[in-house]
């Protein structure tokens, strides 16, 4: 047995080395697998159901992969299409694929795996005590679930296998776990589950498991009870260290990976350097869960936001920035209450001092006096109109507020015009839960197209 999975990059949209891809294609892979999403870029993408990456770069990178697929006549699989993997972004990705098929004059079969969840069903599962919280999950309620803008379930090997089984040329999956994309075909072909899942985690970010993460492309070759990771790019190597250290990457527990249908335990894994420069991996253990669970991700609208940015270069004000901003805040709050009739609990004003402690806030331990401070003022309220009004009330104070009663009014620097901006809806993540299902496909859908 020798099953080969080619991973061109850690994420479609961040570019990859085309020369390395060509070299990988010469190894005659059985499938090309690429990840298209993550929650790591924040809640706004799932919130809106939109992709983080530009349509043009997505299309150009996908085009190269579609050409490669046509040459080798092997399946091409993308997971978490359009960053958040909602039905809307899967449809967006389908549209790009259709355009390319026409431009490239390709006749192809496409299967979509749809992962968006109905709020009604998820709420029903919640009321039936069919949802359970994961580590550090926020509290949820029916109201929270119903107010979600989008909920997705993370597909695993079982759902992706169903999609691959349709014999499509291109498989576009909604939200899926990173590791399951790589693990599915090998498991279908009889590779040990633990080996396939382990390779899935190691290869999820492409060349991140090599000495040169920027090189992008990797090739994983499977035998029944082990897998080889091979460097594809000229300027990179794999070592037992680079391969095993990837278990640590963005994973809360370096020895365990929880996935749909079970968990992977790599405590006894063995990583061996081979003469041809590859690393051979064996020894992981897959522990099946008798209660099949799917992880859910959801977002809701926390409010609306507007921001203002003002630059303070005057030494006197730089050293007294906290006092100055507190005075501005107090003045604004009085005006907001009297002119906008808005109570304090219905909006928030945050002052973040760029150059001082904007990154770490109250956790900052360093105290160095900077030359200047950028004051980023973030207003959050229930309506955009309220944020805009508060920002406009703030403006003259940010421009001229004086710490001293008897001096001429100071003027501070606005780097942009207009000085304040409406951000729109402020989305936030609100689900870190799993749902129990009888059949893995219960909450997922397949759609088939021929072009």
């Amino acid at each position, binding site marked *: 047995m020798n099953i080969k999975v080619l991973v061109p990059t850690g994420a479609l949209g961040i570019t990859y080395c085309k020369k390395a891809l060509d070299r990988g294609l010469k190894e005659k892979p059985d499938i090309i697998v690429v990840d298209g999403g993550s*929650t*790591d*870029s*924040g*809640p*706004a993408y799932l919130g809106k159901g939109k992709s983080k990456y530009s349509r043009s770069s997505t299309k150009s990178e996908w085009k190269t992969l579609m050409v490669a697929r046509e040459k080798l006549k092997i399946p091409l699989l993308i997971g978490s299409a359009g960053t958040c993997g909602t039905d809307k972004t899967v449809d967006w990705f389908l549209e790009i694929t259709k355009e390319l098929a026409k431009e490239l004059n390709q006749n192809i079969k496409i299967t979509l795996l749809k992962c968006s969840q109905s709020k009604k069903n998820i709420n029903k599962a919640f009321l039936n005590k069919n949802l359970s919280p*994961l*580590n*550090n*999950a*926020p509290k949820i309620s029916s109201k929270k679930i119903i107010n979600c803008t989008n909920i997705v379930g993370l597909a695993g090997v079982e759902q992706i296998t169903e999609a691959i089984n349709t014999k499509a040329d291109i498989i576009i999956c909604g939200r899926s776990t990173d590791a399951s994309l790589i693990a599915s075909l090998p498991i279908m072909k009889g590779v040990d589950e633990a080996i396939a899942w382990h390779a899935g985690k190691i290869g999820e970010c492409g060349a991140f498991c090599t000495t040169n993460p920027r090189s992008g492309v990797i090739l994983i070759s499977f035998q029944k009870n082990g897998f080889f990771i091979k460097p594809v790019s000229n300027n990179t190597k794999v070592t037992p*260290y680079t391969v*095993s*250290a990837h278990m*640590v*990457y*963005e*994973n*809360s*527990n*370096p*020895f365990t990976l929880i996935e749909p249908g079970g968990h992977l335990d790599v405590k006894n894994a063995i990583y061996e350097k081979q003469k041809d420069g590859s690393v051979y991996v064996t020894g992981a253990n897959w522990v099946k869960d008798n209660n099949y669970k799917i992880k859910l*991700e959801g977002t809701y609208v*926390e*409010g609306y*936001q507007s921001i203002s940015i003002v630059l303070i270069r005057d030494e006197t004000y730089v050293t007294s920035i906290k006092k100055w901003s507190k005075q501005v805040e107090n003045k604004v709050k009085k005006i907001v209450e009297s002119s906008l009739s808005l109570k304090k609990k219905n909006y*928030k004003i*945050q002052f*973040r001092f760029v150059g001082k402690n*904007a*990154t*770490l*806030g*109250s*956790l900052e*331990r*360093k105290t160095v006096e900077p030359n200047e401070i950028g004051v980023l003022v*973030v207003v*959050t309220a229930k309506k955009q109109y309220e944020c805009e009004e508060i920002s406009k009330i703030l403006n003259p104070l940010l421009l001229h507020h004086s710490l001293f009663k008897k001096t001429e009014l100071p003027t501070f620097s606005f780097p942009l015009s207009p000085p304040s901006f409406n951000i729109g809806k*402020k*989305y*936030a*993540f609100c689900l*870190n839960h799993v749902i129990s299902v009888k059949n893995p496909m219960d909450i997922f859908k397949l759609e088939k197209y021929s072009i």
Partner: protein
Amino acid sequence: MRLKELVKKIRSKNAGPFLLTIDIFCSNRKTFETIIQKITKIEISRLYKIPKKQIEIFPIKDLFIVKITIPRPNIQGSSKDRDLHGASFGIILEELKIK
């Protein structure tokens, strides 16, 4: 000496929207053992203002890596969050003075 001068690298990342994971990469066993001894749950609790029982520390002896997983001080991308990718939380440890 500051911790960053002792170790190879400190990396801070989100582990999903609700957890933060900080990896301390050491060059050798001696440093690795020093880190295990100095970077205790008490120390992490003090630096990150998080209750001790919510902190997990994993020493990975084959790689000389110490992994620390904590709840995110604010949920990723929520209105209170300041660091979407959890990129800078490791700096608190990098700049920690150790004897």
